[in-house]
């Protein structure tokens, strides 16, 4: 049990996927200008990442390893993620329109979110079991959503501040992300 708690804490805070592992930075800067879009993107990532983590684990263990095709991992994983995203999008549109209208526009973006592929690859590299994969994927995704929402909150305030012209927009965004990353650095001593 302690192992799982440690895994959750380390995935959410200590190895935060955005601020410590530098994965998924394009949506991080792209959709963090408003709180609602940040929440939507965060939810979409949690949703897709858990499913992608589980499916890629199964594919890797029962398909690639059995036939000694590990060198096709990158290709197989990205195909799994791309088709998964497509399926999730179609499924949501048909059956849960309310959720679709909330997550809809963020879903296609997730295919090229390197956090998703990154976490799937990390799960395999760390040789997690199936349950550990589920827990780790969920925690990484929560960490992503947390950082994204925090950052969006800060960014909404920056709009009100007077920023020097050359620093505006992405530039000040990156510097702010650096400060946020520094705050997360404090968790390093925990595990």
């Amino acid at each position: 049990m302690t192992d799982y708690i440690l895994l959750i804490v380390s995935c959410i805070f200590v190895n935060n996927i955005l601020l410590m592992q530098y994965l998924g930075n394009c949506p991080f800067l792209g959709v963090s200008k408003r709180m609602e879009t940040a929440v939507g993107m965060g939810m979409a990532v949690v949703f897709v990442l858990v499913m992608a983590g589980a499916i890629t684990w199964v594919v890797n263990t029962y398909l690639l390893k059995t036939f000694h095709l590990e060198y096709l991992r990158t290709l197989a994983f990205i195909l799994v993620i791309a088709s998964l995203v497509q399926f999730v999008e179609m499924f949501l549109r048909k059956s849960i329109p309310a959720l679709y209208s909330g997550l809809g526009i963020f879903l296609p973006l997730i295919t090229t979110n390197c956090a998703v592929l990154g976490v799937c690859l990390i799960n395999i590299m760390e040789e997690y079991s199936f349950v550990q994969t589920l827990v780790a994927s969920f925690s990484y995704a929560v960490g992503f959503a947390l950082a994204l929402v925090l950052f969006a909150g800060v960014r909404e305030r920056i709009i009100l501040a007077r920023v020097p012209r050359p620093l505006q927009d992405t530039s000040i965004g990156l510097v702010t992300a650096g400060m946020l990353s520094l705050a997360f650095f404090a968790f390093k001593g925990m595990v």
Partner: protein
Amino acid sequence: MAKTVVQEFTKGLWAEIPPFRLVLGLCPTLAVTKSVENGIGMGVATTFVLVCSNILISLLRNVIPKKVRIACYIVVIATFVTVVELVMQAYAYPLFLKLGIFIPLIVVNCIVLGRAEAFASKNSVVPSLADGLGIGLGFTLSLTALAMVREVLGNGTFYNIPVFGPSFQPFAFMVQAPGAFVCLGLMLCIMNILGKK
């Protein structure tokens, strides 16, 4: 014709230099610029994928159905990334270990997919090659520049060679995650100032 090819090539070096002008592909930019060696390695790997995928997609642009084009592009890109991965594993193993997860992640580097969608799918082979080469070279240059600042300040070395005396205290913040964000943000600011003139 010859002039436009040159233009396609040079725009990647200044007017659309990634990731400063084209704010794409930030993840590898932040992650691998701890040292100049990693930065150049990553830049060359990305350039190779970019050029090859641009050529192939431009050749196939009339064959690929519009509706499934993104999936097709991803398969093409993933194939070349696998090639790079295997080649590096065979001939540059220490670098392969250092770059680690970021080599397979070239697949989801938005620059590569972005160029395929925005350029190679609409242009013939030669301009696509020039575009890929230019953007790739620009990316390598940016990575090297950023890595230079971070390695010199954060580690006191350049390409693993010490530049300061033994009394130099490394500015460890620069090689850590927060330093990467702040450093890139400030470089973006400098680019904005330079670009205005």
